[in-house]
């Protein structure tokens, strides 16, 4: 593998989310707050979700970690905002499948998230990418 192969991991859109994270900060008003970390490496996220009538109306995160974990958090908040809980959980399942390298339904519109597909080829980094999604799953289940 040469440095060029790293481009499958560090796609432009990932680095854009890392450098300019979307939805970084704290939600105004009442929100479910989930703290999660990756104890083996120290990545840490605080995710806040505002859910009304079964729909995620706001999602924000704070934390620190590598480019993969932070860009994934940024993309996740973008993806679940405005979705109902079931769709958000379904998306998390799709994301898990993507990390396992499974073939995905080509009709799915994954948006920016698709850029993280390359992570499946770097097994040591999969946990970085799934951290924010796990926090989201925990959050919406708590809200339920």
């Amino acid at each position, binding site marked *: *593998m*040469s*440095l060029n*192969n*790293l481009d499958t*991991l*560090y796609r*432009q859109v990932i*680095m854009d989310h890392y*450098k300019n994270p979307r939805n970084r900060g704290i939600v105004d008003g009442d929100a479910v707050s989930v703290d999660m970390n990756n104890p*083996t*490496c*120290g*990545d*840490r996220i605080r995710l806040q979700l505002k859910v009304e009538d079964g729909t995620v109306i706001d999602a924000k995160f704070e934390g*620190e*970690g*590598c*480019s*993969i*974990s932070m860009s994934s958090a940024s993309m996740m908040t973008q993806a679940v905002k405005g979705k109902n809980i079931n769709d958000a959980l379904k998306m998390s399942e799709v994301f898990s499948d993507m990390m396992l390298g499974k073939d995905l339904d080509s009709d799915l519109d994954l948006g920016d998230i698709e850029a993280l597909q390359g992570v499946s080829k*770097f097994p*040591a*980094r999969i946990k*970085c990418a799934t951290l924010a999604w796990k926090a989201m799953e925990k959050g919406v289940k708590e809200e339920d």
Partner: protein
Amino acid sequence: MDIKAIREMFPILNQEVNGNPLVYLDSSATSQKPLPVIEAVDEYYRMDNSNVHRGVHTLGTRATDKYEGAREKVRAFINAESTAQVIFTRGTTTSINYVAYGYARQKLQPGDEIVITPMEHHSNIIPWQQAAAATGATLKYIPLQDDGTITLEDVRNTVTENTKIVAITHVSNVLGTINPIKEIADITHDNGGIIVVDGAQSVPHMKVDVVELDCDFYAFSGHKMGAPTGIGVLYGKKELLEETEPVEFGGEMIDFVNLYDSTWKELPWKFEGGTPIIAGAIGLGAAVDFLSDIGMNNIYEHDKRLANYAMEKLNTIENISIYGPNERGALVTFNLDDVHPHDTATVLDSEGIAVRAGHHCAQPLMKWLNVAATARASFYLYNSVEDIDALVDGLLKTKEYFGNVFE
């Protein structure tokens, strides 16, 4: 030291990783294993495998002789007075837990103090947190200087007559700090306490003489010094080991078993409940022979040269933070500014270079350094200056790569 000849003894090094020759710079996590160790374990399983200390058959005798022979090799290696003081455990963590459970919990009372430092590995923090919580003793910390060292003045100010236990690492697995164990042991003893030393990062790299250091308990792992995983050692002063209760009860560690009570075997076997780690101990014995043949002082000088060379070279890289004192053990912990250590480690891995990235099982120390994680390159007898040159090249490429994607 003939590094080329030494490298040939480590077959694992002769491979490509991601299309590049493997550059293994993670020996502080676990070292690679030399052929004599691999062969000793292989031969034991092919020829001698049997349980120890029971039965009268020939294989049983051979296995027992090899197992106890390994104990004698370890005894000589750390200059303990007697093999009764060399207890085989699963590793440093288990060794420290044996002291925290079997000794500290029997002895500590409310008002007593346990003194440790912020540079400890989790394995030398949590057993003491637990012992303090169980007994009502207080946990205290010797403060760190800005360069990641401790001063004897601070040791004197922290250790009091209420201090029953000082638990400290010999060499920090993050900062590389080498602590003055003998002097700290003297201060501890002057106050009537005992000292427990985490030797996981020292025994593989330097001559350790437990009598000269005057430490009361000394714990280390085999897998960081060429031996298999799953074997480690707890050394203790004899009278203290006599006072220490076994932590695991069952077969192998008993003298007489009655219906309602039992008595323990003598040292060291009262701590070795169940079928012991026979192949691991034999592998450790072979590792001790291997290291002794090369000479611990030679290894120390070699590792120190590499650490100094690495410090010098890494310091030439712009926007790099290096943690810990100038005088250090065989490792360098660092961060490239603006690149997370996981990302650094992934780029280095694509070049075949193995480094550790994360919190190194030292979260309180990460907090003190005010970082979430760091990268660490660590060296051993099979590493060369070329390995460090490869690391520096890899780091320059990392900077370039992330510089470009950030454009």
